[in-house]
C-alpha cells in the first residue's frame, strides 16, 4: 500500500534501523541481575564461531552461531522456538515479529549477534506461566486468525501496539498493525481483539 502509511515513529515500527541500531536494553540488565535461569547450550553447528548469550524468554541462552545467522533462524533452527515464522525473510510481512528489550522487531532482519545480552521475547514466552496472555485469549475470542501462520507475529505486534500507546482508536490500531500481513484477511478480528484488550485497560 502507500509507503507513507507504513512508516512512522522509528521507535515503534519495524525497520532495519530499529532492528540493528537499538540501544542496549535496560530490561536485559534487570533480568540478569534478577538471576535469570540459564539454558543448556545447543550443540554449535559447523562453521559457528561466535558465542552469544541472549536472554530468551527469561533464560540466559548461551549459543555459538555463524555470525551471519539472523535472529529468526537462531530461534527456529538452533533453539527450537518455531513460533516466530518466516514469511518473507525480508522484513516485509511481520510474521517473524518478536520483542527485543520489550520492543517489536522483525527477527529476520535482526542479526542474532546483536541480541547478545539482550532480552528476546517470543510468542512462546509471552504468557506468564501456563495461562494465556490476554491478547492470546482475545485472538481466540474474536477469531482473529485463520491459518494461524502470521498469528504469533500479529500477537507480538498487537502487544507492542498497546504498549506504544497506539491502540487509541480503530484507525490508529490499523495503522500500527499494517506491518503485519495476514493473507487470510483476519484484519477485522485482529482490530477487534486489540481494541478489546486495550479497552479493558489491562497492563500488557
Amino acid at each position, binding site marked *: 500500500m502507500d509507503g507513507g502509511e507504513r512508516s512512522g515513529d522509528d521507535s515503534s515500527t519495524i525497520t532495519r534501523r530499529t532492528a540493528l541500531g537499538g540501544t542496549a536494553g535496560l530490561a536485559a540488565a534487570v533480568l540478569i541481575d534478577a538471576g535469570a535461569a540459564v539454558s543448556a547450550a545447543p550443540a554449535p553447528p559447523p562453521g559457528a564461531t561466535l558465542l552469544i548469550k541472549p536472554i530468551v524468554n527469561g533464560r540466559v541462552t548461551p549459543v555459538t552461531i555463524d555470525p551471519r545467522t539472523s535472529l529468526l533462524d537462531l530461534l527456529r533452527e538452533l533453539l527450537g522456538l518455531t513460533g516466530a515464522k518466516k514469511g518473507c525473510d525480508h522484513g516485509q510481512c511481520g510474521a517473524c515479529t518478536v520483542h527485543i528489550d520489550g520492543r517489536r522487531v522483525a527477527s529476520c532482519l535482526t542479526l542474532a549477534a546483536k541480541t547478545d545480552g539482550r532480552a528476546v521475547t517470543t510468542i512462546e514466552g509471552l504468557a506468564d506461566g501456563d495461562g494465556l496472555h490476554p491478547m492470546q485469549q482475545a485472538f*481466540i475470542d474474536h477469531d482473529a486468525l485463520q491459518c494461524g501462520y502470521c498469528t504469533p507475529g500479529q500477537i507480538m505486534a498487537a502487544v507492542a501496539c498497546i504498549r506504544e500507546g497506539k491502540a487509541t482508536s480503530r484507525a490508529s490500531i490499523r495503522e500500527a498493525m499494517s506491518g503485519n500481513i495476514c493473507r487470510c484477511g483476519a484484519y477485522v478480528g485482529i482490530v477487534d481483539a486489540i481494541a478489546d484488550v486495550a479497552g479493558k485497560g489491562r497492563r500488557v
Partner: protein
Amino acid sequence: MTSAPFPNRPRVDALDKVLGATKYAADYALPNLLYAMQVPATIAKGRVTALSIDAAMRVAGVVKVLTAGDFPPPPAAQQGAPPPPATITRDIAYRGQPVALVVAETLEAAIQGAEAIRPTYAADATFTATIDGKGAVRQPVQPTVGGNATTAMVQAVTRHSAEYVSPAQHHNPMEMLSTTAVWEGGVLTVYEGTQGSNAVKGALMRNLRLTSEQVVVKSPQVGGGFGQKGGAQRHTALVARAAMLLGRPVKLVVPRGQIFHNASFRPKNRHRIEIGADAAGKMIAVRYDADQQQSREGQFPPNYHETPPMMYGIPDYHGTAANIRIDTQAPGYMRAPTPHPSSFAFDSAVDELAVKLGVDPVAFRLRHRATRDPIDDKPFSSCFLHECLSEGARRFGWKGRPLAPGAMVRPDGTQVGWGVGCGAYPANVHPNIATLRVGADGTTRFAAAGHEMGQGIRSTIEQILVRDLAIDPARLEIAIGDTSVAPQHVTAGSWGTASVVPAAEQAAAKLKAAIAELLAGRSPGGNLHRQLAAVRRPFVQVEVTTVGPGQGDKDVARLRQGGMAVSGPEYPAFTSFSYIAHFVEVHVEPHTRRIRVPRVVSIADCGRVVSPRTAESQVRGGVVWGISACLREATEVDPRFGGWLNNDLADYVVAVNADIGEIDVGFIDRPDMQFNSLGAKGLGEVAMTGCAAAIANAVFHATGTRLREMPFRIEDLL
C-alpha cells in the same frame, strides 16, 4: 431430512495457533538435518551449457550439489493424469527455473553455496514474455452455449458491450513453500504445507520411481494455500532426492522470489462482453469472449463461463474462451480461480446495463431470478441470490441511494459511492473414506481426506462429532492432510466441507449403532468413553465411505489411487452453486484520488452454515481478497528478460490492516438437502466472487468514471 442451525463455537485449533504451538511443515525438529537452497536460471528460455559445482563445494559446510544428472529421466506419460513437475533439466522453459540444488550443514552455507554457482547458458532470444508478444500462440477451447445468443441478441433493444481486464496475480500465502524430506528404511516421509498431500505423493512416486508404500506426505496444518499449494511443486522431488542420496533429512524453505517464478499464479485474463435487454428491461442474451495468459504446456482451463450463466436466468448465452501460450511457468488455480475475474467483468457489465436503463442496480438484478442452469438445462438444487440481495440491501441501508453518480459528496470533497456486486461458485464434492474411533481412555480420533489451510475444516468436523456423540471434545484428534491416515484428496474448490461433514455424520451414526449393539440394552451412563469403560471395551472403531450425488465405486477407486475424484456442479438431477451479494461503500479522496473501502456488507448463500464463526471469517477473508485484488495486486512481467519484476511483498502489494474497514457478514443459512445430508454447499471461494465488481460499481457511483481494468490505480481517477 432436515439440518438444524449450528452453534457458534470457537475455532477448534485456535488455542494452539495463538500459543505458536501449531506445527507447520518447516517447524519439525529433525536430527542431523541438512539445509537446501535452489539455484534459479537467469535466462527466460534456452539451455544450460555448463554448470560447475566446484565453487559451491569449496564453501565450508556444503555437502552436495544436485544437478540434472542426479535425477531419473522424466516418467512415461500416464493416461488421465498430468505429468508431474519436471525435476532439474538442462532445458530452460522460464526464468527462475531451478538448475541446481545446494545442500549444506547450515542454511547460511546453503545460501552461500547457491550464490557461488554460475552456470553458462545458451539463451534462446525468441522467447515470448507477454500475451501481446510475437510468439504468443492462441488456442481456443470448446465454447459454452445455452440457447441461441446470436438470434436473441437481435431482439434486444438495449445493449451494452465493453472489455474488462484482470492482471496476473500471485497467491502469496504467508507460509512459504517448503519441503522437509526424510529417507529412512526405504520410506520417504515428506513434510510439506500442501492442499494436496495425495498429489505431492503421486508426483514423488512418478519422479523418483517409488511405490505407494514408500511415500508418506504429511500436511496437517497449512499456513494458507489459496490454490497455490493445490498440486505438486517443482522443488519437492529435488529435496526428496537429496534426502535419498545423502541419507539425512533435508529441508528447503523456498525464498519468496523463487516462489513467484516457480509456483502457480493467476494468469492475466481479458473479457469482451455484450449483454442485451428486451423492451421490458430484462437481460435476454449474452455474448462473451474470454482469453488468458498460458504457459506452453499449461493445463489450467479458461473456465470463465463457469458462473456468469448461473446468475440471472438469462436463457441465451454464448461464451468462447482461449489460451494464449507464451514462455512462462504454468499458471494455476488461485482463490475463486475464474469466477473472481469473470464476476468482476460480468457483474460490472450488468451494472453498466442497469445504468444505461436508468434502473437501480439492486432492483435490476432482482428482476432476474435464476432457477435453471441454462447450459445443462437442469434445475438448481437451491439458489438464494435474491435473498442475499434483499438482506444485504436492508443491512447496508441501500434504500434512498441516489441513482445518479457523483451525487454523494462530503464537505471535504470526498466522493462517496455505493455499489453492489454478485458472484457464484460451483458446489463440488469428492468421495471420502473416514474412520472414527472412540476409546474408553477418553480419546476420539477421526481420520479422513481433507486439508486445513485455515478455512476451518477441522472446526466443521468437530461441530458434527460433538453434536452427534457424547465425547470429550478436548481429546478429539482430527487426523487429515496425511497420506498415512486415510486416502487423501486435493482440498480446494470449496469442496472441503461438503466432502467431509457427511462422512463425519455417517461415521458418528455408525459408531453410535455399534456401541448400542455392544451395550445390548444396558445403560451404564456417562459419555461414550465411560460407557465403553463400563463394559470393558478399550475402543470401538468404524469406517464409512461417502460419495456425492451420482458418484459411485469408480470415484471411490480414484480417491484410493490419489487422483482427482471431484463431481459438480452438474449432477444427474440438478446443478448446484453457492451465491453471494456484496454491498460496498467507497470513498474517493478529493486530492489524491485514493480509493478507500470503509465498509462492506456481504450476504452468502452457502446452504447450511456448519461452523458459523469460521464461516464468518472465511467471508471476511474473501472480501479482503476482493479489495486487495481490485485495488492492489498485479504481478508485472518483465517484457525484456521474462520473469516477474515485483517478486516480493514490498513490490507485490497486498491489502494490509489499514486498507480494510468494517466487514459485516451474514448468511441465508438455508440447507440444500438435495446436495448432501447437512445441506452444506461451499463457501471459501464464493466469498471473493463479485466483490471486485461491487467496488468497481461503487467507484462509478462515486465518480462517474467506469474502471474496467484491475487493479484500480490512483492515476485511473485523476
